[in-house]
């Protein structure tokens, strides 16, 4: 392909976009909105996934001791917990510490505890951290059997719920992505259809003077790709702004919430949206052309 031919293609592309300003604008907007929704969904799914993984890695066992357990029993229990295979850390929490912690969590409503009077219902406990979540199932029954142990609990249920939710989100997301992609494809192919229809005379003359199908196709293909690309750019920019603002809010209020770090995550996501948008644009322009090229 010669340089003047490439120049011709680019010129034709932008001439056509300018000629159909309104429709081009509509296409870019639709692509932008669709990809924005898609991007937000991806952000949600990926963060939910991240949260589930984080929770899983954070799994710890809470070992609650009997109130009747003597200091000796407590020391012995701590010792045997520490020597268990896979246990990485054992923290003891006294009754007073547990009470203080709960008071802090209640915040303004800690007056509710006044009803308890001098009594402290919290048991002495140990927080046991393990290296791998799979170990929990073997460790917990052993701890349960130890002397002085009332019960051993762990957050497996929460994690399982979290994973179920992520799975649901992912499946729903996939369906949504598919529907949005179809809608975008439809809108872009309609825009190109209008462009091709407006230029069908030109296309037929091109065929009579011996233009190859690819020569005719290129400007339309470029137009579709450009519309998809422009829409994806808009969607990416908006998405980045939204995520950065969200991140700021989350960090200000929920300091330890494991949100995925903005960069380079957002760069990859934008790249994905831009490639998707451009590809949808290209596909959208190929569909209506087939009919008109058949002269």
């Amino acid at each position: 392909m010669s340089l003047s031919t490439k120049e011709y293609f680019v010129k034709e592309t932008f001439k056509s976009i300018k000629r159909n300003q309104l429709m081009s604008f509509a296409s870019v907007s639709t692509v932008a909105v669709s990809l924005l929704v898609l991007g937000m969904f991806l952000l949600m799914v990926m963060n939910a996934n991240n949260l589930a993984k984080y929770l899983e890695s954070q799994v710890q066992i809470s070992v609650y001791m009997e109130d009747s357990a003597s200091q000796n029993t407590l020391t012995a229990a701590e010792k045997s917990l520490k020597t268990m295979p896979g246990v990485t850390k054992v923290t003891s929490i006294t009754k007073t510490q547990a009470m203080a912690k709960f008071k802090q969590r209640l915040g303004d409503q800690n007056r509710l505890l006044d009803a308890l009077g001098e009594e402290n219902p919290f048991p002495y406990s140990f927080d046991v951290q393990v290296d791998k979540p799979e170990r929990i199932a073997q460790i917990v029954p052993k701890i349960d059997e130890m002397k002085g142990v009332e019960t051993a609990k762990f957050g497996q249920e929460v994690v399982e719920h979290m994973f179920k939710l992520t799975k649901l989100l992912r499946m729903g997301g996939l369906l949504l992505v598919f529907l949005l992609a179809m809608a975008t494809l439809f809108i872009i192919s309609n825009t190109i259809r209008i462009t091709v229809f407006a230029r069908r005379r030109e296309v037929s003359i091109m065929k009579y003077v011996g233009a190859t199908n690819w020569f005719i196709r290129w400007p339309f293909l470029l137009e579709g790709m450009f519309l998809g690309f422009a829409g994806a750019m808009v969607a990416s920019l908006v998405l980045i702004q939204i995520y950065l603002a969200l991140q700021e809010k989350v960090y200000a209020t929920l300091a330890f919430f494991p949100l995925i770090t903005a960069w380079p995550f957002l760069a990859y996501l934008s790249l994905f949206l831009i490639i998707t948008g451009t590809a949808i644009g290209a596909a959208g322009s190929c569909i209506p052309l087939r009919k008109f090229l058949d002269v």
Partner: protein
Amino acid sequence: MLLMKGISKTYPSGAVALRSVDIHIKPGEFVFVVGPSGAGKSTFVKMLFREVIPTTGKLFVDGVDVIGLKPEEIPFLRRQLGIIFQDYRLLNERTVYDNIAFAMQVIETPYRQIKRRVAAVLDLVGLRSRAGDYPGELSGGEQQRVAIARAIVNDPLLVIADEPTGNLDPETSRDIMKIFTQINDSGTTIVMATHDKNIVDSMEKRVIAIEDGYIVRDDAKGVYGYEPEH
């Protein structure tokens, strides 16, 4: 240049446009195809650039088996042809120059060559001073001259004209025919479908008459009129 053997065309509707046509046209010939409306002239002409595919028979243009062409080979056949229509088929939003240059851009001719060649064909059709005008600013005759310029700008072996003077008055038609004669004098073969009796009679060229899908006459120096003895 052009060889038809046993060409027939039946449209899907059942209408028969051509019946077992045998024609041989030599390079450099100027041939009129005449006949009443619906006789099959248009089908005859459209077959040459493969807009219509014959139902049976063989068709060669400059040695190329037109019927056997693959879809991707059709553009290369058409680059050897110059096609002219009754309704000019110009692009109204492009200037005279661009309408002609367009045919060269499409086959990816270098820019500088386009400029030189377009100027030359504009001289030939006498429209050099109108290069910057739009088709809407030209008369019918001038528009047809632009269409002719576009048809010959790529130096075709064969010019195919379908009723090129159908929309023009007799005087303008004569001017157009002078241009065709010039093109033919330079060695280009011309096949022209027409209704125009005056033109056919004045040119004294080969005339192929089609009626109801049959070739009813093929005279080396023919006239339009129907001769009783045939």
